[in-house]
């Protein structure tokens, strides 16, 4: 519990900075969007589009005249920001002890290594939860001037659930990196590599039909904003896959950290 509280306090600043970035992002983009909202000429243009063409080209027409369409578009960016923040929290929580030369101190405390990881992981988890909640609240406040309907709030709820799942995946990956990397400096850079790699894969997989299989390798493609809106629920297979990744990463994190030769 002490470790948990200490970690919460230590990561408060980082949480505030990430929330600041997010706040700035939502405010700026909403300001841009306000020029667009409710413009009937835009709607008329989109209505003239033949549906099969959109499907054939694998393009979803975001109906940008409604807030819901606008938030469909925002999904990828929320996932990206949330994923990065969570991966950083996960890897940093563990590796910073070695960087700041405090790992011997925390391990002479009368707690097992398992307990240390658990406390740290919980702190990172709480950060992630707070981050999603802040996104949710700020979004509700930011779009209030556009008088969103009930459908929007339903969609926002499921979008936030998807964002949270992505955060959890990256948190678990970050945790594993922090625990498993022999050199603490590598955990951060490997996390960058994974984030960039999965992001590029998600772009690639949309570009061509035969590269579609790539979507299994990138969490950013697990949930599709359009599908979330149409079905109103998260894809079962993707949820299973996400749960699998999280369980494997977290288990591996505990196993490796217990056997780790720590850098002091």
């Amino acid at each position, binding site marked *: 519990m002490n470790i948990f509280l200490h970690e919460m306090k230590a990561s408060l600043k980082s949480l505030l900075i990430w929330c600041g970035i997010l706040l700035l992002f939502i405010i700026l983009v909403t300001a841009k969007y306000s020029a667009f909202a409710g413009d009937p000429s835009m709607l008329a243009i989109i209505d003239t589009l033949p549906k099969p063409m959109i499907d054939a080209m694998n393009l979803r027409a975001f109906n940008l005249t409604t807030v819901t369409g606008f938030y469909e578009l925002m999904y990828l960016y929320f996932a990206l920001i949330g994923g990065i923040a969570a991966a950083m929290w996960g890897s940093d929580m563990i590796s910073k002890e070695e960087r700041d030369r405090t790992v011997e101190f925390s391990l002479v405390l009368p707690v097992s290594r398992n307990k240390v990881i658990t406390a740290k992981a919980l702190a990172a988890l709480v950060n992630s939860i707070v981050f999603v909640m802040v996104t949710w609240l700020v979004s509700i406040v930011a779009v209030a001037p556009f008088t969103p309907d009930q459908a929007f709030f339903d969609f926002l709820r499921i979008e936030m659930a998807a964002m949270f799942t992505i955060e959890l995946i990256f948190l678990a990956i970050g945790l594993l990196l922090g625990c498993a990397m022999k050199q603490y400096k590598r955990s951060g850079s490997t996390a960058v590599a994974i984030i*960039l790699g999965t992001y590029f894969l998600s772009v690639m997989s949309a570009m061509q039909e035969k590269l579609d299989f790539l979507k299994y390798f990138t969490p950013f493609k697990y949930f599709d904003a359009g599908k979330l809106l149409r079905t109103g629920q998260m894809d079962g297979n993707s949820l299973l896959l996400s749960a699998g990744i999280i369980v494997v990463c977290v288990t591996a994190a505990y196993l490796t950290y217990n056997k780790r030769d720590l850098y002091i």
Partner: protein
Amino acid sequence: MSANIFNFEFRSRLRSVLIWSLALTGIMFFYFSIFQTFAAQAALMNELLARFPPALLEAFGMNKIDMSTVLGFYAFVFTFIQLCLAIQAGNYGFGLISIEENEMTADFLLSKPVSRTQLLTSKLLAALSSLAVTELVVWVVSFAVITIFRDSYEYQSGTLVLLLVSMLFLQLFFMSVGLVISLLVKRVRSVTPYSLGLSFGAYVLAAVSGVFGEVKLEYITPFKHLDPAAIVQNAAYNTPLLILNIAITVVALASSYWIYLRRDIPVVS
């Protein structure tokens, strides 16, 4: 400028430069390997796109980029190259001074017979050289992938050179801004979250700002100062934005020197 510091700094980044260069090479080959399939469907695609309303194309950022041309496709890939280069430059900028203070080597370094100005200049030049080596790799690989995969498609090498030169401005921007932020905050414990926050923040803003057209987001994100799609479309830089970009870089660098010369250095007590 001290040759020892320069050599040490440059050598300590070799590994990182190598990894970034390999990653960038991989990305370019990976994306360009599907260029021919794309280009083969070019006529079909353009025909389809022509029937889309301009506003919608803009929403997908496809109004500027004609992906059926070599340079259009390259500009699309180049946005990802830019993102990587920005993170690399941000890493070097944020780490330039803070790494000494984290590893408690700042007092050792400052006890050497070099002035702080010399120290900062040597470090900056070393980081810049490391960035330049990475850029050189991108230059070579860019021409290579285009030669290999372009088939019979033509392109203007002048515009390509413009794009490639823009890397220097982008990296200088992120390195200088990173450096000045690292000097402004009390302590940078870990470089990665900072540089990721800065680069991805700017990248996401640029990506979203493309959707909504005319609002003034262009001014605050360097990815818009050096928008590859716009460079390819106009075969020229957007001069006011480029000047703004350079001005921010210069201000950041100048204030870094000013702050660093007056900085209270944390030491082992």
